[in-house]
């Protein structure tokens, strides 16, 4: 199965085209000049779309593995029903390039994978005519995607952040000890995320116990240390959940706070990054990370649903990711906590 794709237009060859369309996307009217420019542009890019067809779905994504996996998942699911094209972008891609591709191909729907794709596409929309905003968008694999796509009138998407209830349900089946209360350190400016987790956790009879840290502080290490001790000694939580927050899980914080404080902690620590359960760090025993291929499959489902709603995305909203990969540091888990051996066969990666 061949995946149709674009590559970003070579920079030195794009300037004429960029200048030609930099008049605020008074969107490429199909004049002879425009078509010549379009043909010129197409000749400079590696395009492999079925002749005579315009894509139903245009995917903007970076050319790195997790995004390739997500694209593959999506393409394998809908590639036989929709004409799908992709345009590879990077941090250096210009908004004009994105705009040119979108205007030229005029897809029915755009899939934005990652923060750069969203940023560039928003940049394009800022310069374009209002009708461009009506084209449906599916956003995924971006931090707090719902916030990034807010105010856009026809957007849906899949959140990148794995939900607490998913993590704790898997943890509960893996360990013998009861998991009823889970502690989490969260900065005040991200507390909205934790608050949104509480109802789903409560339905599964798991109490989420957040400890609020200041959004910024000159000595964040002291706040983290105090917070961890509070959750462990005062709240006596059954497990700790470590959020992927670059401020509280920086290399310095890991070295100076997390590792020393959790050195003798004998309860589960769940993380969202593989390296935190692998040597030499081995901070947690269990990691739950997004399954990128399945994110693509889930995005494909959204594309189906949007197409069935006459290309209206808004009412579908932003969904949590359904599928995850589970990674286990078996030695560390066995040495500190009893484990249900039968469940090992449900783990995607076991680090022995």
């Amino acid at each position, binding site marked *: *199965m061949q995946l149709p794709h674009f590559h970003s237009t070579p920079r030195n060859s794009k300037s004429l085209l960029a200048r030609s369309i930099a008049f605020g996307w008074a969107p490429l009217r199909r004049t002879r000049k425009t078509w010549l420019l379009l043909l010129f542009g197409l000749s400079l890019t590696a395009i492999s779309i079925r002749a005579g067809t315009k894509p139903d779905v245009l995917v903007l994504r970076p050319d790195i593995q997790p995004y390739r996996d997500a694209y593959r998942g999506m393409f*394998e*699911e809908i590639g036989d*029903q929709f004409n799908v094209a992709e345009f590879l972008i990077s941090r250096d891609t210009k908004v004009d390039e994105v705009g040119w591709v979108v205007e030229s191909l005029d897809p029915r729907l755009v899939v934005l994978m990652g923060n750069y794709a969203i940023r560039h596409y928003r940049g394009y929309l800022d310069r374009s005519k209002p009708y461009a905003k009506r084209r449906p968008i599916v956003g995924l694999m971006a931090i707090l995607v719902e916030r990034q796509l807010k105010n856009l009138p026809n957007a849906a998407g899949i959140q990148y952040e794995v*939900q607490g*209830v*998913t993590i704790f*349900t*898997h943890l*509960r*089946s893996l360990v013998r000890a009861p998991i009823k209360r889970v502690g989490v350190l969260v900065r005040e400016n991200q507390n909205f995320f934790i608050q949104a987790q509480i109802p*789903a956790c409560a*339905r*599964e*009879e798991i109490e989420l116990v957040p400890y609020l840290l200041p959004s910024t502080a000159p000595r964040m290490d002291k706040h983290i240390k105090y917070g961890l001790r509070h959750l462990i000694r005062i709240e006596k939580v059954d497990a700790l959940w470590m959020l992927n927050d670059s401020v509280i899980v920086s290399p310095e914080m890991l070295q100076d706070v997390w590792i020393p404080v959790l050195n003798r902690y004998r309860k589960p620590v769940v993380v969202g990054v593989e390296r935190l359960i692998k040597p030499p760090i081995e901070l947690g025993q269990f990691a739950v990370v997004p399954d990128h*291929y*399945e994110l693509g*499959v889930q995005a494909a*489902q959204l594309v*189906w649903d949007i197409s069935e709603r006459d290309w209206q995305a808004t009412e579908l909203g932003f*969904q*949590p990711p*359904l*599928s995850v990969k589970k990674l286990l540091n078996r030695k560390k888990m066995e040495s500190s906590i009893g484990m249900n051996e039968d469940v*090992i*066969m*449900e*783990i*995607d990666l076991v680090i022995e």
Partner: protein
Amino acid sequence: MRLFFFCLLHLVATGASYAQGPKVYAFLPSNIRPHAMQGLISREAPGIDITFFGRYREFEVQLKQSRPDAIVTFRMVGENLAKESKNPLAPLLIGKREGETSEKFILLAVGKKIDLGQIENIGIGVVSLMGRRQMAHFLATEFKVGKIRIKTVTKLEDLLSLLQFQDVDAILVPESQLSYYNERSKLNLVATELDGITLALPVVFKITEDPNKIQQLEKAFQGLEPKIKGLLGVDQWIQP
């Protein structure tokens, strides 16, 4: 010298392929990861070269690219593959559990039974055994409705996520999986029985006509430990 190494490599490669037993592709979505099932069966039945697939699309693509000697999957999947490829697949061994070759499907919902009279208006989560379009067609036929709203997932556990996120009204699962969901979740899961909607148990379909390979396949699958057969969803294999 280079030619010698090529010849040597060729000999090693062909020797290795002759040494291997019949090639089997398996697609049986369960809570167990495909690599774990593959490792387990490879150890238990070294006479066959088995590959497990976790996703229907991968299974389907691989079947087109490289033909195995046999496949193990649910009967409905085999029949769908045969229909799409227009090549009939002959059952070699039929799975049986507790004396039956099929089991009932049930609908699981949170806190209430499903009104089957309203089936067209509810969202149903289901593991994708044949791709979304085929699954929707299969279920619409089984429920005797024109159209059905489904959400497909790849893994069993993702069906639970659909219920946890209140993304669907119910999930469609074989009755034997009820205990899996009850063990995993504290949600008040209520089952709605479905008259006449069943899942035929796994079948070993032969593709090869080589009698030696067929014999090897029968021996390997019949000889599996009861626990391993249980993981495949059967307790015995019978001749068609």
